[in-house]
């Protein structure tokens, strides 16, 4: 459910567009940020009320775009390693294996303490500094084992 802050954010968002429906992507993003990284049915129903659009169309949008996680909670840190071509050429496979070893989970899983989720993703537009990954909103580039170990030590 939207907090007071989220409602304010949504009001500002609505000013960007000539119709309400165009705000659906931003509204889903706000809901996901509020809802500990994922979107629930209740969120989508609320968005459908606020934006005056059918709930199934909110759902259609939410499931089309891969960054929305519908009913799919992730850990506190969502680690997404790029597995596309430039990163692969520069050793992405090795980075992914190292992550799996250190976190003791497989790609696609979350650690039992819900701290880390490990995923692979398609190109993140950072191919000149491959291999790279994104942790929550931040990019980490030119990765090697040492950098990863240091970073994991810093993430509390």
């Amino acid at each position, binding site marked *: 459910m939207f907090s007071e802050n989220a409602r304010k954010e949504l009001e500002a968002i609505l000013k960007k567009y*000539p*119709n309400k429906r165009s705000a659906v992507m931003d509204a889903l993003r706000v809901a996901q940020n509020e809802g500990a990284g994922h979107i629930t049915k209740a969120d989508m129903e609320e968005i459908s009320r606020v934006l005056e659009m059918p709930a199934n169309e909110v759902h259609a949008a939410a499931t089309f775009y891969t960054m*929305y996680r519908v009913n799919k909670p992730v850990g506190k840190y969502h680690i997404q390693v790029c597995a596309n*071509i430039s990163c692969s050429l520069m050793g992405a496979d090795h980075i992914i294996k190292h992550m799996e070893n250190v976190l003791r989970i497989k790609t696609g899983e979350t650690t039992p303490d819900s701290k880390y989720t490990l995923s692979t993703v*398609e190109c*993140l*537009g950072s191919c000149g500094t491959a291999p790279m990954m*994104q942790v929550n*909103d931040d990019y980490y580039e030119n990765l090697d084992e040492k950098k990863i170990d240091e970073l994991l030590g810093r993430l509390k």
Partner: protein
Amino acid sequence: MEKVLLKNYGKPDSHKIENYILSGGYKGLEAAVKLKPDSLIQLIKDSGLRGRGGAGFSTGLKWSFIPKDPTIPKFLCCNADEGEPGTFKDRGIIDHDPHLLIEGMIITSYAIGASNAYIYIRGEFVFGTNRLQVAIDEAYAKGYLGKNIMGSGFNLDMYIHRGFGAYICGEETALLESIEGYRAQPRKKPPFPALAGLYAKPTVINNVETLSCIPSIVEKGAEWFSKIGAPKSPGPKIYCVSGHVKKPGLYELPMGTTVRDLIFNHCGGMLHEGRALKAVIPGGVSAPLLTPKDLDTPLDFDSLAAKGSMLGSGAVIVMDQTTCMVKSAHIVTRFFSHESCGKCTPCRDGTPWLTRVLGRIEHGEGKPGDVELLESLCTNIFGRTFCPLGDGAVMALRGFVKNFRDEFQFHIDYKRCMVS
């Protein structure tokens, strides 16, 4: 060549408006609002600028299709979706020189008579989104955005629309669907966006790099621009180099720089001494690969088209002799399959099928006849898809199979990789 697009890249606080103005920024806008919109469009036509988003369409011509009727609202959309694997130039401009893009967008809006402009930026670019928003706010504060810009009577509002993880949003009509709050599936053309685009109103969609060329053309003239690089696709070009080179990164060079010059001169050669170049993807993964015999090909729209490939987004991906071509083809095809929007059957069903066959060949489970199966699947997809994504998948894969068929066959026959 004097840098135009990356001239501020890497300078301290290059993203701040004071520094942009100190470096000569917003002079193009000052000159532009003194011109008639029609003269501006003619100027861009004369410069020979062609779109940097992939298709290479004449920018001035695209603008000229917008109806002149001042009572019809019009839109400008900047395509900052940057999803083509290997590409990272638009992010470079946005992170380091957001005002260059904003100035280009204000001039473009003035030329086409748009009073609202959207920047469609991919959702993962959180840093860039924040940078852009701060820069937009700065531009409002200085009077470059908002009402009566620089006393010209022209009004413009600029907004950011964030994507959320879908490569197809880079296709211009899917991008419009996405802003309107729908699933991003391409629209039927015609009608073209110039007549019925965003909210069914006349709309220009241009790439970040295209728009960032505009201020300097207005300031220095069409002739100056048209004399840089290749005569039929002139201007500066940002090449995004990744893979097995010593110095990967962004290189702003005259359009038409050869592959050899770029890799062996500007990028310092191959990453590992003693390893030979095996293949180069010249324009993002949709572009069929080139082999060492093509090293002297100029990287411009027409020269690459003549080689059966394309300049695309200008993403140059370099592979040395240790690269497994089956694995690379698998990664590239998997990407297209993952990003297929599902609207048309040949792409929705065909690209996952290609991916499955490639996966089993890569992992030593290929069957005799699998190479031929790939080829016949390609024939069934190509030319039958609703948008260029499906065709791109086929063209890329054909490039791999045509040039490295023996590697695919080796994987099938010996159940292991030929090179690694």
